[in-house]
């Protein structure tokens, strides 16, 4: 199985030239990072040593070490700069790869679009539109033929019946609102209805009310 897998791997490696370049850069980045780490550790150690030397009064030796420390600090700075350059390079390659992919996809899309356009030539569209117009015209002719089958008298009957029906429905509309009981409404609307109420003429009720008023007024007058 291993052999099979091995041969398969060799055939279709998906690692591109750019990948290898990025990888080498990343390896270098790791190594630089490790180097910077090593320098950092050494620096800390030397700092302690300088303190120790000063405590023991060995000024000259301390100075020497400080000089070494300075140099190493410079190296760290340089390494950091290198790291930045490497990182930027990695990003540039990766971005260029993406860019190349985008261009590739765009050109593929363009080709697809062109193919679609080839499929639909202007002449084709014109022909289809003409065909459609002819079809519509044909349909209109059929309609005319069919509706033309009715005599003028029939046509008049149709119009008359239509008008009659319209009138009936209108009459019903006029009658209906009176017959219909008040639909249940929201409180606010109900108040409005109550204001309108006196407008509804109900002779009998009015008389009764007048009588009622008289009856109410009479005791009042008696009382005063």
């Amino acid at each position, binding site marked *: 199985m291993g052999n099979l*897998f091995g041969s398969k791997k060799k055939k279709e490696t998906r*690692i591109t030239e750019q990948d*290898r370049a990025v*990888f080498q850069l*990343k*390896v270098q980045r*790791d190594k630089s990072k490790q180097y910077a780490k090593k320098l950092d550790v050494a620096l800390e150690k030397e700092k302690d040593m300088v303190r120790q030397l000063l405590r023991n009064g060995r000024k000259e030796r301390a100075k020497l070490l400080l000089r070494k420390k300075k140099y190493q600090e410079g190296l760290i700075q340089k390494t950091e700069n290198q790291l930045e350059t490497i990182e930027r390079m990695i990003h540039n390659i990766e971005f260029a790869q993406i860019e190349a992919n985008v261009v590739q996809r765009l050109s593929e899309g363009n080709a697809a679009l062109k193919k679609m356009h080839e499929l639909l030539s202007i002449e084709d569209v014109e022909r289809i539109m003409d065909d459609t117009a002819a079809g519509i015209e044909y349909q209109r002719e059929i309609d005319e033929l069919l509706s033309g089958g009715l005599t003028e008298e029939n046509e008049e009957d149709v119009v008359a019946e239509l008008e009659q029906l319209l009138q009936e429905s209108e009459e019903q509309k006029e009658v209906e609102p009176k017959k219909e009981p008040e639909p249940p409404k929201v409180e606010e609307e109900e108040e409005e209805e109550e204001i309108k109420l006196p407008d509804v003429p109900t002779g009998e009720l009015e008389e009764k009310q007048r009588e009622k008023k008289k009856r109410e007024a009479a005791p009042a007058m008696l009382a005063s």
Partner: protein
Amino acid sequence: MAEFEWPWQYNFPPFFTIQPNIDTRKKQLEAWCFLIHDYCKHHKLYSLDVTEIQSSDLFYNKKINRKLSSDSLLTVLDELKKKGHLEWADKSKRQFTIVWRTQEEWGKLIYKYVVYNGLTDTVCTLYELTEGEDTVDREFHGLERPLLVKALKTLENEGKAELINIDGNEGVKFF
């Protein structure tokens, strides 16, 4: 890292002596397996040396002055091996690897990280995966190289990765 929580058995002196009663022993070995598994997972231990681990606080409870003997330790480790959580690195049974997560599980974990960080279609060095600053809070940070390679191989078999080796520098490209 949070303090490791010892199970109650750890402070129970008979726990450090392999029990003669079969039922008791079965329970005891099971508890030991759990303890070793959890301990190694907590401390991210992978490859261990028998002599070294024997004197560590895992097998030597100084508080109750109990220590697992060499023979007992081997019994426990063999039990772990039976459960598939241990692999001997040599025939003399001096070094072993604790498997508290299978290669496939590691692979899945790494791939999840890769997808989450948009690292698909990207080459990475193995160093940056397990030692890099970006993975410090990941479980696979500090994973031993052979284990990492095995985990990545499982991804390679699934077509999710391809290992790279240029002049001995190992890397991987994720898809």
